[in-house]
């Protein structure tokens, strides 16, 4: 196989990964890493570096739209980025000292968690009122636009959410994924932020979190230009198509199929990790 053919095939998979990632909200990284390591036998370090770059691209691309519409809570995002960026740097450091087999196993477990989380019904929370001293001090209470005008909301459990975001950051730096599933757990289930706000704010934060660990991967030589090139462009195009058809298709069936695919990939990753094949 020549480099040209390899590039075209990887590009095709990346478009598919970006498309599915944006339709299901899981992001392209969760597909691209197992595809590269299991199917193309690419070293997992390269796969992680490549995925990090594509995560930044899709996050920035999508965040642009949400920020303009005023749905993302910028202050909440910035405050929680304290937790995710420090976590991401720690995760990227740890990645150099543990074996690739263990990284593969952790990756598989996080994949399973993400697949389950994507299938669970999201409870849409709306907490109003003045909030705690901490939320007022940090100006985390905000509003978002709805068809009936502005809706105010309050953020709960700031400390718990911050801690969970720290964990999400470590996972992101260690595995090269956006860890959107963990971020949504932190904001939806712990901080009780309305669903629309939590998903857009999470997306907004993913780029900065990934940038924090990308620097370390870059210096270590984990980011290969010839591998990253088809992946980044492919995932971007896929995500773009995804946002265009998101409103036209029924996502629920697709979500179930995608969750099953991810579950199988996860088991394969864990098996290969346990057998020291990765």
């Amino acid at each position: 196989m020549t480099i040209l053919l390899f590039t075209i095939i990887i590009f095709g998979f990346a478009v598919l990964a970006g498309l599915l990632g944006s339709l299901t909200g899981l992001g392209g990284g969760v597909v691209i890493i197992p595809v590269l390591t299991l199917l193309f036998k690419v070293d997992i370090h390269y796969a992680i570096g490549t995925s990090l770059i594509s995560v930044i691209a899709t996050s920035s691309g999508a965040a642009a739209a949400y920020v303009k519409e005023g749905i993302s809570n910028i202050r909440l995002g910035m405050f929680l980025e304290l937790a995710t960026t420090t976590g991401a740097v720690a995760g990227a450091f740890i990645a150099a000292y543990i074996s690739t087999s263990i990284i593969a196993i952790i990756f598989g477990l996080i994949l399973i968690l993400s697949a389950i989380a994507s299938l669970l019904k999201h409870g849409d929370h709306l907490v109003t009122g003045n909030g705690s001293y901490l939320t007022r001090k940090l100006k985390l209470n905000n509003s978002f636009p709805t068809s009936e005008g502005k809706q105010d909301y309050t953020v709960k459990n700031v400390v718990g959410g911050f801690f969970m975001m720290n964990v999400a950051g470590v996972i992101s730096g260690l595995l090269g994924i956006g860890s959107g599933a963990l971020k949504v757990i932190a904001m939806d289930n712990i901080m009780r932020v309305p669903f629309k706000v939590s998903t857009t704010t999470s997306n907004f934060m993913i780029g900065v979190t990934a940038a924090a660990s990308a620097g370390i991967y870059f210096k270590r030589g984990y980011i290969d230009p010839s591998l990253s090139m088809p992946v980044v462009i492919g995932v971007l195009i896929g995500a773009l198509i995804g946002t265009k058809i998101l409103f036209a298709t029924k996502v629920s069936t697709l979500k179930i199929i995608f969750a099953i695919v991810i579950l199988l990939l996860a088991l394969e990753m864990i098996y290969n990790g346990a057998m020291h094949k990765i």
Partner: protein
Amino acid sequence: MDTKHQTNDKDVEKIMGNLLRYGVIFSALIVIIGAVFYLLQHGNEQPHYVTFLGEPKHITNIKGIFLTAFNGRGRSIIQLGLLFLIATPIARIILSIVGYVLERDYLYIIITLIVFGVILFSLM
């Protein structure tokens, strides 16, 4: 919140949205230009990604990337595009700092500066 504060907030958000969008488009274009160069130079060779070797020195540091990219080396041009991509969210943070300075929100100036410091630490 007074109205002046609100408009200021909205303006910064608008600029931020544009910055992110054009940052991604700009970086992607550079990556594509690099891809054309690279595939013309090496398209017929064999790939080797199975074992981790690490990248050569000239494309893992910023100065080396700039130097070799302007010599028309495909991989360096791609790497330059990827660097711009990593820089997009960083530029967004710098813009936020400016916004909070204009609003005199000292708490968030400090929070944003710390986030900025963490990212710089990882890049240095």
